[in-house]
């Protein structure tokens, strides 16, 4: 967006409330139990919030964080405001019974339909379901370019240079605004919400809308996927310490790798 000579960026961050996977996860009745779980901003979305703030501070403009979920998401939105975002929007989808990534992306697409924006940032994946679907699906529905797993972003006028992590390799891409990009670890180090920021967060605008105010029908956004079961990964086995002469240990190691772990 141009305002006189100055380029002002309109940046949105899509943000998910997830549970802290560093805490103990308990499965109850085929679902991850909310009891005693700690909730946080999805760590990859936190990189996105930080990058949005950095870009706004550099180019001027405004950062709006958007979250699809229920009233509890207000907490994470307020945290993003305390980090330095300017506005927050909560789209309540509590009423939708069957939800998946398609649901979230479609609600967001409806929200963005009549919005002007330069950049939509999100996390590469969420640390709970880890599908990495919402960002790309949203870009597709909005018909804008999408770059995933970014580790650097530079904006000059309408041109955007992005560095992305391509499963270990580095790709440098040139694209243009408007753009949707998803953040990978290494993009930045998210700041702590600041103390003055926390005290101000309450006074910053947080708007709540119901998904059906966006003119969408529950039938159109219901899950396309079905969760069959949810289970914890097998418990880590204790390590094995090999004994004896070095030469014997090497032999035993090779045997183990062959027979037990079957990696060779």
């Amino acid at each position, binding site marked *: 967006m141009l305002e006189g000579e100055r380029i002002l960026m309109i940046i949105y961050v899509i943000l998910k409330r997830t549970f802290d996977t560093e805490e103990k996860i308990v499965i109850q009745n085929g679902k991850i139990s909310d009891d005693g779980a700690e909730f946080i901003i999805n760590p990859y979305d936190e990189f996105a919030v930080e990058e949005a703030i950095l870009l706004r501070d550099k180019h001027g403009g405004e950062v709006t964080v958007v979250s699809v979920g229920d009233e509890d998401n207000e*907490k994470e939105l*307020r*945290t993003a405001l*305390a980090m330095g975002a300017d506005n927050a929007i909560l789209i309540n989808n509590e009423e939708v019974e069957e939800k998946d990534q398609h649901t979230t992306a479609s609600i967001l697409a409806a929200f963005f339909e009549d919005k002007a924006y330069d950049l939509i940032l999100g996390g590469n994946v969420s640390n709970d379901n880890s599908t990495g679907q919402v960002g790309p699906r949203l870009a597709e529905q909005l018909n804008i370019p999408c770059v995933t797993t970014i580790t650097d972003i530079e904006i000059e006028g309408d041109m955007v240079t992005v560095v992305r992590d391509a499963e270990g390799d580095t790709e440098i891409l040139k694209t243009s605004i408007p753009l949707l990009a998803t953040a990978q670890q290494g993009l930045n180090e998210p*700041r*702590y*919400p*600041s*103390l*003055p*920021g*926390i*005290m101000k*967060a*309450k006074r910053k605008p947080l708007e709540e809308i119901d998904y059906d105010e966006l003119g969408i029908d529950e039938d159109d956004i219901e899950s396309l996927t079905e969760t069959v079961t949810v289970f914890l990964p097998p418990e880590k086995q204790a390590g094995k310490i090999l004994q004896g002469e070095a030469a014997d240990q090497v032999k035993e190691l090779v045997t183990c790798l062959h027979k037990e772990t079957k990696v060779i």
Partner: protein
Amino acid sequence: MHLRLTDEQQMVQKTIRKFVEKELMPLENDVLRNEREGKPSLSAEKMHELQMKAKEAGFWGINTPEEYGGADLGQMMLAIVQIEVAKTFVPFQFGGSADNILYYGNEKQKEKYLMPTINGDKKSCFAMTEPGAGSDTRNIRMTAVKDGDEWVLNGEKTFITGGNEADFVMVIAITDKELHQSSGGRKGVTCFIADRSMGWKSEYIDTMGEWGPASLIFENVRVPDENVLGEVDGGYDLGLEWIGFARWVVGARAVGSAERLLKMAIDYANERETFGKPIGTRQAIQWQIADSAVEIEAAKWLVLNAAFTLDQGEDNRHAASMAKLYGSNMGNRVVDRVLQIHGGMGYTRELPIERWYREARLWRIYDGTDEIQRLIISRNLLKGHVKVG
């Protein structure tokens, strides 16, 4: 009545918790190693680096007035912060604050001592206790005699926290013997700000804890008249104010430490198996966990109440004594149970429990012993200053 933290308080709590988990807890092994090698727990550079990182996020001078560059968030916020920071034994303190009584200084003293202390350029200590005057603060012997526009100080102070590292001390000495006697020790003493360069000496005292206090020796130390803090002969109240401030904070420290320790015990009780079952399935262990949890919760409310009372501008001394007495005893009981639940491992130096065990013992002694807190609480009740219920 609203017995919940506000949204802001919860967010501060969460932020500090994250800071402690991300920045401080990873240093725990280094701290243990340093201490075992007799080095400072945390180097001054590391402390400064951490304080600056916190400052970037505005965590600086949590209850320092805004005009001195602080955030001035009051005692409740301080309590929340103290509880979170106590979840690690890494001896970190947020920067940007100074001893409460330094604010009574005149403009020159504020410039020379208060501001550099807030900014971390100078280190302070406070000295009331003497070899013959601990609980009985009125029995001090140190004297200050006026000579021209200077005071000459003679005597010995002991158990002074930070006394070996401090650049200056706020020291209490008798300035009017007769008045001191006739007032039962409440008047006739004065608080002086004495720079180390004025000639007092300090000697480290080895304790059961990881950082030792110091004894301070004053032999004809000449302190200029302009370094009298507050009124001449009015130092006793300043002393009480200094001691009183930190009192409930000891309770907060106990709550945070006990919460972390109890978490360790719960994890261990779920993991450690004896006779084919986790020890957490045994009632003997379960009851220790339950009692600890209840006592921590009780102590936390006493601490928060002491902080809240002060924020309301009310006298919180009674509440502070209760928070200190119950909190520090709770902390000792919890660390003892947690050590017991860990069995032999708890007693080793592989785990930090023994370190906490040694630190916790101090809570019942300094800033007024258990017995002195009981004396204060019962006196308030017996004399009718505070009513039951």
